[in-house]
């Protein structure tokens, strides 16, 4: 068995939106292994996004234990957690979430800029990464000048440029047409295997299930099935 990169025990998360309390996560227990591509699937509103937010330290939770690379994230200070996340996790979002004012290469460079790496090094790595996702020549184009598929490839380059151990993708293909979606998934799996990182992909898109090592099914804030 390979090593565990993330472990969650009995995670509970409730949202208090006005009168109604939403029980988003009702005791989730899951381990994620090194070098695996895990897909998280289930009906809308079942808590997938909430779970990956908790797992990656973007959202606080009510009870349970969540460890990332052996460290308990609930005991970390906000500052330390932010730095830890920046260094070890890469994100890919459904809405791409590129900064509209920055060119493709500057967007890719963000995780390195945040880490205050040297500018020359930052630009070299970012350029290489853009080439790796097949966007050489588009370095200085702003997101508004790129297609959806291209924007998502920029986002992937950004998620991977600083060699994080763990990649979280929330519906990376659902804003894209089928062909662009396939390209994005090919890229992700290829680069993940090459760099030896783990990845969770939240998705509705059963056409990409084939890329998964394991598929975790959620319903109503619970894990109902794990398939290999």
């Amino acid at each position, binding site marked *: 068995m390979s090593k565990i990169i993330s472990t969650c025990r009995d995670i509970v998360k409730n949202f208090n939106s006005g009168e109604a309390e939403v029980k988003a996560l009702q005791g989730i227990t899951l381990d994620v292994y090194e070098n695996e591509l895990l897909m998280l699937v289930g009906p809308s509103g079942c808590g997938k996004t909430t779970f990956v937010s908790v797992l990656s330290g973007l959202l606080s939770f009510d009870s349970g234990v969540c460890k990332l690379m052996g460290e308990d994230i609930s005991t970390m200070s906000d500052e330390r957690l932010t730095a830890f996340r920046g260094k070890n996790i890469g994100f890919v979002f459904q809405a791409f979430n590129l900064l509209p004012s920055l060119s493709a290469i500057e967007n890719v460079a963000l*995780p390195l800029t945040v880490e205050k790496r040297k500018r020359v090094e930052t630009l070299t790595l970012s350029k290489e990464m853009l080439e790796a996702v097949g966007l050489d020549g588009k370095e200085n184009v702003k997101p508004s000048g790129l297609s959806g598929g291209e924007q998502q490839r920029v986002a992937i380059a950004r998620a991977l440029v600083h060699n994080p151990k763990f990649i979280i993708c929330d519906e990376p293909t659902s804003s894209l047409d089928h062909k662009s979606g396939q390209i994005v998934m090919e890229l992700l799996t290829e680069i993940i295997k090459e760099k030896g990182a783990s990845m969770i992909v939240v998705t509705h898109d059963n056409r990409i299930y084939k890329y998964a090592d394991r598929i975790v099914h959620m319903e109503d804030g619970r894990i109902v099935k794990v398939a290999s």
Partner: protein
Amino acid sequence: MFRIAIEMLLYDKTKYIGLLIGVAFTAFLVTFAMGYFAGFMTRGFALVSENPSAKVWVMDPSVSSAEATINMSDSALDIVRGVKGVNYAAPMYLGNMTARYANGDFQTFQAIGVDDATLSGAPKPANLLRIPESAIVDSGGTEGKLQTPIYKKDMWSYDGSHLNAPTRKLRYGDTMLINSKRVVVAGVSHTIPRFPPRPLLYTTASNFKRLVPGEKRYITFIMVRPTKNITPNKLAKRIAKQTGLKAITSDEFKKETVLWYMINSEDVGDMVNMVILAMLVGFGVTGVMLYMFTYENIKQYAVLKAMGASTKQLSDMIFTQVFISAIIGSGIGVGIAAILAHMVSSATFPFRMMWFAPLIGFLGVIIVSMTAAFISLRPIKKMEPGIVFKL
């Protein structure tokens, strides 16, 4: 991060220009309002300014402005002249006089009676005051108040007033009546306009007494020039000590006058309130605009935070953006205020750009902007970066 902050700021040109206009407008408003206020106040102590050689002013101890005055007895002049260090001391009479114009209309003047011997305190052409029963008139910041009929037939006519007769400006040789006594206009001067505006009538002390006889006390101020070996400050203290009168330097007198206006004049009080209101509104609008600018970008900050940007890095970005907008915007605003001030400043429009007006305009905007930046840090600090997953 600095670079990212600037690109973020400049990305939406319309928004950025809107922001600059807002900031510039506030800086302009503050600077201009203060210049306007300073202009009024400068006119409030015009009497002191137009007598630059009078370094020390002596007055009744209860007087605290050039505007509200009470007179001293005539012996005060000799007493002051006897103080060591007084090179020269000249009396000044002040009083209101109502003059009857040739067409039967009337006008109230502030009469200024000056020393017969030296005519010090009289404007050019001062020498013409040597003409018997003469006076120099001055609009004092008013308009259309120094008028006399164009045609002889409308002047001093036996069939009563000709109030609707066509008129022209007063000039050398025209006559009017004050307390039924004839006054010849010896000239029209253009001294510093007054606040509040009022027509002025300069005449000699003896003519003043002829027009308003029988008063016990005539001297309102004594203007003193010190000898070479004493500073105005020291001499003022010495005069006060030896005579029991109030003696202050011209600078102190100006300051006291401004203070007196602020405390005692409802008009000035209203004006100050207006200026303060304008500043508050401007500051408020600027603050809200800057806050909104940050708030609208909160999703981008959340993305940065998800990627490991610390709160300090994010707040540095916000301060950079706000600081740049504030500096450029207030620069533009203060600049426009200066140019406009130059253009509009005139006899009827008091304006004086004092050194502190642009400074306060500038600093005020910077402080407000920084406060806005500080407040907009709150949502940034409080946000759960989890919102990055929400569309």
